[in-house]
């Protein structure tokens, strides 16, 4: 047990060296780190949001909304297809999760089936090159004379995935406009998105930017009826609907259902100022198709009002003075500078494919983060010194060995955290402090065992040998249980708790490793230096 081969010593030295190399960047300045040669590890510990301050938002994408849109579209598709084939139908409409339609003539069942089957489209496989022949529609004959069309599982999953991916892309564009550093945006679960923005202590603006779908469309105002009559219960004219302004009090308008130009045609938006009143406004530009369309419609409707509708609220309803041909225009509402700026950001970044809800928000100010780091550091230093002194008092020179191993343990933990680019959180610091207390356990077990063997009148060398051998099984068994708990914690945890689980797990592994290599190595050196001592200082 006390013999170490050259290979083993080299291996230990290597691990130790790697530990120093990987933990070193934490003690260097940003510039030094960047100037380091490529082959050396240069990444320092990642501080969690609870330590550096910042905002954590958990958003859920309302995918149901997208499905509803798809089903609404499907109703129109079915109408068109059946009409085109000259098949008479009744009762075409949405049911809970699909579309149902009845045929007037049962004779046409087979023909209708063929037409409807034609509506189904293959679902793009999620995995590139995947073998997938799934289609997006499930068409069943509901009773003798009708069909029900539902979206297939594959279609829903594919669409949700696409919706969430698009949302992430748009969120990224919106957040980048805020000019914050290194935001993290990741998908979580099926329909959730986690947004983490460091260094943001008032996330109000961020939330305002993320909380809006920002779907903007241009609609003509329908002047065939008074919106107040429709409010009072009168039927709206065909193809028109009631929408309110976003002002207080809200003013009703009747607008054409079909948009004259859709917001998807926007290519650019920026804040501007009215040359006369100096009031903030938003300038926008369409692509060529949108610009042409906008030109045609405005030319044909001079003197009539149109409405700019954002997320189903009218933000402006100007009267068309002249044909707007250049494909560019401006929105003058009652904006503050920031509102105009944010609207421009939203229009530039594009609309979210589905509305989002904020499920969870956790924001830590930079003051608290810095205080936590300071408190954690002091607790770590004090705890460390206290444990070291205690070990020294209890086990003498052997305690010293355990303490050196403990220091190297700390270096290794830091190295693994930096190397893996794991995030250090406040509970993570707690995990390290706890590890300081628990890491000596492996050595304690060994030393106590050696003491026992000495009491059983074994010679020192034999006692050390037997002590190590017997303690091994116990140490492994005992630490596997804590490791299991740490793994389960990691599975359960969100950000900060995960940080704790990671440091705890790393601490367990490194402490067992150092106990069986380093302390043993030190003891073997000591035994040799003392020339096989007749007594152990235990």
């Amino acid at each position, binding site marked *: 047990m006390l013999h170490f081969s050259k290979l083993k010593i080299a291996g230990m030295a290597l691990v130790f060296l790697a530990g120093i190399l990987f933990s070193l960047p934490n003690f260097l300045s940003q510039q030094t780190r960047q100037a380091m040669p490529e082959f050396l590890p240069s990444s320092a510990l990642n501080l969690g949001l609870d330590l550096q301050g910042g905002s954590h938002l958990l958003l*859920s994408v309302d995918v149901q909304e997208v499905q509803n849109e798809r089903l609404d579209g499907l109703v129109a598709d079915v109408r068109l297809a059946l009409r085109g084939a000259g098949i008479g139908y009744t009762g075409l409409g949405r049911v809970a999760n699909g579309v149902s339609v009845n045929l007037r003539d049962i004779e046409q069942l087979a023909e209708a089936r063929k037409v409807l089957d034609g509506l189904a489209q293959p679902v793009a496989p999620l995995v590139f090159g995947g073998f997938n022949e799934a289609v997006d529609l499930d068409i069943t004959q509901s009773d003798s004379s009708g069909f029900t069309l539902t979206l297939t599982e594959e279609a829903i999953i594919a669409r949700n995935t696409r919706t969430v991916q698009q949302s992430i892309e748009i969120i990224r564009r919106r957040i980048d406009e805020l000019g914050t550093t290194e935001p993290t945006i990741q998908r979580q679960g099926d329909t959730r998105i986690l947004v983490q923005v460091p260094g943001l202590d008032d996330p109000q603006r961020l939330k305002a930017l993320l909380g809006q779908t920002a779907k903007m469309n241009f609609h003509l105002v329908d002047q065939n009826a008074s919106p107040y009559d429709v409010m009072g219960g009168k039927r709206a004219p065909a193809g028109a609907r009631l929408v309110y302004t976003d002002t207080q009090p809200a003013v009703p308008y009747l607008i054409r259902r079909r948009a004259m130009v859709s917001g998807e045609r926007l290519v650019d938006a920026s804040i501007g100022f009215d040359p006369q009143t100096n009031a903030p406004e938003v300038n926008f530009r369409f692509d060529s198709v949108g610009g042409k369309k906008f030109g045609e419609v405005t030319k044909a409707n001079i003197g009539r009002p149109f409405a700019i509708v954002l997320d189903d609220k009218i933000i402006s309803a100007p009267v068309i003075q002249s044909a707007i041909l250049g494909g560019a225009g401006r929105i003058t509402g009652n904006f503050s500078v920031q509102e105009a700026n944010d609207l421009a950001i939203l229009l530039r970044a594009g609309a979210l494919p589905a509305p989002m809800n904020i499920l969870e928000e956790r924001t830590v100010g930079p003051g608290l983060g810095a205080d936590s780091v300071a408190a954690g550091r002091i607790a770590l230093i004090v705890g460390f010194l206290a444990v070291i002194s205690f070990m020294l008092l209890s086990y003498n020179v052997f305690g010293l060995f355990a303490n050196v191993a403990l220091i190297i343990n700390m270096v290794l933990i830091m190295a693994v955290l930096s190397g893996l680019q794991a995030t250090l959180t406040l509970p993570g610091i707690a995990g390290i402090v*706890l590890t300081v*207390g628990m890491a000596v356990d492996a050595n304690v077990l060994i030393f106590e065992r050696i003491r026992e063997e000495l009491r059983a009148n074994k010679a020192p060398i034999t006692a050390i040998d037997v002590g190590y051998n017997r303690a091994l099984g116990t140490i492994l068994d005992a630490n596997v249980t804590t490791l*299991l708990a740490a793994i*389960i914690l990691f599975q359960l945890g969100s950000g900060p708790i995960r940080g704790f689980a990671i440091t705890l797990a790393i601490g367990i592994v490194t402490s067992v490793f150092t106990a069986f290599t380093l302390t043993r190595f030190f003891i073997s050196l000591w035994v040799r230096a003392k020339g096989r001592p007749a007594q152990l200082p235990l």
Partner: protein
Amino acid sequence: MWTLKLIAADTKMEFVRYRLMAFVLSALLLIGSVGAFISNGLNFGIDFKGGTLIEISSDIEIDIAQLREQLTGLNIGEVQIQQFGTPSDALIRVSADEAAESAEGGLSAVESIRNELQGRFEIRRVEIVGPQVSGELIQTGILAVLAAIVSMLIYIWFRFEWQFSVGAVLALIHDVVLTIGIFSLLQLDFNLSILAAILTIVGYSMNDTVVVYDRVRENLRKFKKMPLDDLLNVAINETLSRTVMTSVTTLIALIALYTLGGEVIRGFTFAMIWGVVVGTYSSVFVASPLLLYLGVKRDWSGNQTD
């Protein structure tokens, strides 16, 4: 050469003989815990209940009563205010609007509080948890504790015998119930980090128990004829020094954290300290004596797992 020895070498304390006293004490504590839980429930934090939490700080002492009056005037539902660590720090809690499906119900409350306090206080932390998320956190929390206990059960069963795994798990449940009990009795904030502490306690307490059990198994092989209660005593006494040493070093580290680590993790460290004390007690006085009643196999000659 002198060394500090917390536990004298070769102790011969008859732990197992006092098992009845220990069982009565544990039973009383367990009943007390369950009773506290039934009558008080747990003081769930917003992680599990949903709602809004705001930590504020000031240069001067915060007048809680006045602040409460001021915030109640905002008409944002039930507002709880308590001092947080020092007199110049406070926690504001706004209960979740149960009707609200998302955290957005809480947003307006945060905004109005922010507007009200701006300038006079530093807003150090804001947490808003919607009911959907808090429901899930409760679910995963309960699941995690159960998963931890079951995985320990299986692991010990694998490495020892089923009698040991039953004894160890009973001791674990004992520790978890007592930890929940103290939080219920003192009405301390029970949040996600307390749950993390409970899981860590499960790991730590198991660690302790395994060390004693390991020695029991070794002695079962060594002293084939020794009565079981004597054998358990020998095992506990032999490992006592280690049990105490490790508990002490862990407690030293934890006390450093508790006193110096800041208010945010104080609840967590409190739970851990309590758990280490209870866990150490339970591996000596609960887990080991239980083996007497579980019918441990005496003939280990054919079983050499390690």
